[in-house]
């Protein structure tokens, strides 16, 4: 049953009056990214949350490593790693309620996994096994989006529709620093602000759009500053500090849910791996830069915090690593099975009903397949 077939009366209700924000001061981001871990403010953080974040970070790092290894074995066509950016991925997924929607870009596989997707399912697109391996409505995760920033207006439309329907659903849309240069980024933010749609935009500023550094991407003081021009708050956060990202996104999601409109969050982070396995990052960035960012690793930051507050011991850390290893083993096993694709499915789901043209072409392929199998039997 599709969404459209669901019974029950839908009575769209007008949203509250759209109001202009006249004072830009509350919209401006803090001058420095928000940090919690390693600061006195961390003392107020919920130990249970920190531990959960830590476990997901460790699992996420392992997931990135395993997926990258699978590309080397030819099991994945391509993998855009989020190694180094796990804090953003984990926090983005964990901050949402079940009824909310996540709109990931192609680099946000891990966020989808943390949201509950089967790790192998999340790799369907990157494996070349159809384009999308899950029902987006089941997990409320939109299909991984390869064109840049084009998923952002979808998030706005969905959030707007949910509000018309009277549902307190929030959409969280993820985009990279390069994506902020696209027209769809601008249009999405503008629509969201004008409509006061319950959307949170998360920009993972990982320093590079493939090879182009941020300085060649934008002249803005920060990407979060862009929010002000649209009339929405911009927040700047340390993207390697999982607790800070969780808190800043959490505030934005709460505000959106309560009718306070959209927020743009820029998480400053770093992609430790290359753009994808097909990229050579040594051509455009220096080893010293990597070294500096390795010293600010999201897992290390969280580990130090947990240890400092006696929230974890060696056994706890070993247990986290073991759980990650189990996930990786299961993923390897799944990916070592050759996928079986039914070629006749090429003609499915192009339209609700096949056109005459597609019926003819399906018959042609059927005949070719039959001839092939007879050839094989001989």
């Amino acid at each position, binding site marked *: 049953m*599709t*969404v*459209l077939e*669901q019974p029950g*009366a*839908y*009575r*769209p*209700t*007008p*949203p509250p009056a759209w109001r202009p924000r006249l004072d830009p001061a509350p919209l401006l981001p803090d001058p420095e990214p928000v940090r919690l871990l390693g600061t006195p403010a961390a003392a107020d953080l919920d130990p249970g949350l920190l531990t959960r974040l830590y476990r997901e970070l460790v699992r996420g790092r392992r997931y990135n490593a395993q997926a990258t290894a699978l590309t080397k074995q030819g099991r994945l066509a391509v993998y855009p790693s989020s190694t180094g950016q796990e804090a953003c991925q984990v926090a983005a997924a964990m901050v949402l309620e079940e009824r909310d929607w996540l709109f990931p870009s192609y680099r946000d596989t891990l966020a989808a996994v943390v949201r509950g997707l089967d790790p192998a399912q999340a790799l369907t697109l990157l494996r070349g096994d*159809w*384009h*999308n391996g899950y*029902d*987006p*409505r089941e997990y409320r995760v*939109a*299909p991984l989006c390869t*064109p840049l920033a*084009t998923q*952002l*207006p*979808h*998030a*706005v*439309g*969905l*959030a*707007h*529709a*949910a509000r*018309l*329907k009277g549902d307190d659903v929030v*959409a969280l849309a993820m985009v990279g620093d390069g994506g902020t240069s696209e*027209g*769809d980024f601008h*249009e*999405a933010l*503008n*629509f969201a602000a*004008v409509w006061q749609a319950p959307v949170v935009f998360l920009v993972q500023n990982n320093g590079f759009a493939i090879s182009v550094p941020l300085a060649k991407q934008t002249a803005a003081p920060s990407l979060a500053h862009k929010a002000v021009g649209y009339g929405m708050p911009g927040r700047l956060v340390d993207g390697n500090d999982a607790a800070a990202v969780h808190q800043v996104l959490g505030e934005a999601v709460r505000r959106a849910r309560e009718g306070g409109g959209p927020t743009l969050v820029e998480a400053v982070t770093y992609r430790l791996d290359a753009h994808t396995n097909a990229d050579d990052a040594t051509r455009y960035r220096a080893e010293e830069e990597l070294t500096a960012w390795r010293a600010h690793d999201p897992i290390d930051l969280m580990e130090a915090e947990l240890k400092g507050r006696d929230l974890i011991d060696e056994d706890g850390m070993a247990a986290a690593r073991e759980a990650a290893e189990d996930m990786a083993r299961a993923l390897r096993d799944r990916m070592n099975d050759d996928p079986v694709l039914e070629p006749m*499915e090429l003609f*499915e*789901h*192009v*339209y*609700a009903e096949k*056109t*005459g*043209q597609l019926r003819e072409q399906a018959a042609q392929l059927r005949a070719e397949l039959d001839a092939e199998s007879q050839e094989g039997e001989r």
Partner: protein
Amino acid sequence: MTTAAVETARKPATMAQALGRALRDAMAEDPAVHVLGEDVGTLGGVFRITDGLAKEFGDHRCTDTPLAEAGILGTAVGMAMYGLRPVVEMQFDAFAYPAFEQLISHVSRMRNRTRGALPMPITVRVPYGGGIGGVEHHSDSSEAYYMATPGLHVVTPATVADAYGMLREAIASDDPVVFLEPKRLYWSKADWSADRPEPVAPIGRAVVRRPATGQGSPVSLITYGPSLPVCMEAAEAARAEGWDLEVVDLRSLVPFDDETVCASVRRTGRALVVHESPGFGGPGGEIAARITERCFHHLEAPVLRVAGFDIPYPPPMVERHHLPGVDRVLDAVARLQWESEWTEGSAD
């Protein structure tokens, strides 16, 4: 009700009115139908198609959006994902180009990429074509671009009754429909009753608007949208030349009705495709190829095309030289007779 009563209920209505009525009835029937676009609310659209909708249904159902076509269609995708049926208006044909990426990369293939999980019941209304004296970027015929994208239905009404019936069907469709409105026919009139709209053929079916009479040398004119009245006029004029023209209105470019088109060509043995978009790489090439593949042994002459020239749409003062008119159609019909004497001679 008596026949006389039905007849009195029918009054002259324009295509624009029928389109507006279709939107209104669809919105009244299904609260999931939302109209969005530039100027569609308070103004009622620059062509007044959406006149009165915001007043009747509220501006949350007929929404004036920011001026951004990609944003309009992109947000419509999200709305469709949440179970709504957005009807978006692209104010003029050439203004739709910023929305192309959303249309091609998402709207057309979301159903396919999610293996049926996310249908896209979006109607994209595009006023298209020339002949209204519009300045640059207000008269393009973009149908070939849309036709080349699998996953989209591409339809265009040419009559008042079709404008209503096809728009209702497009909005009710679970698939995305690019609904091309021939803007120079917006003010064409027919006796039509909004309260008793006549049933029309479903999307995907072509209709023979003027059957061959059997009197004279037969030719099939295959056409659609703004060129239909031109072909109907040409058919009348052709009688004086001893030609018997059958006029087929395609109505739907995707899916394409091979059956009706080929049945006509098999009857007549000659085919002329008429449209105003540029000929090179245009719909006529595809249609001529399909006819040739299926009806070659019935053809007595090559399939000809009368199309707009392969130029950017010209300025209004000279557009009449670009648009295929009755004379150009009749000249092509004459050329289709080029082999007939030889064919008849060799058959003896």
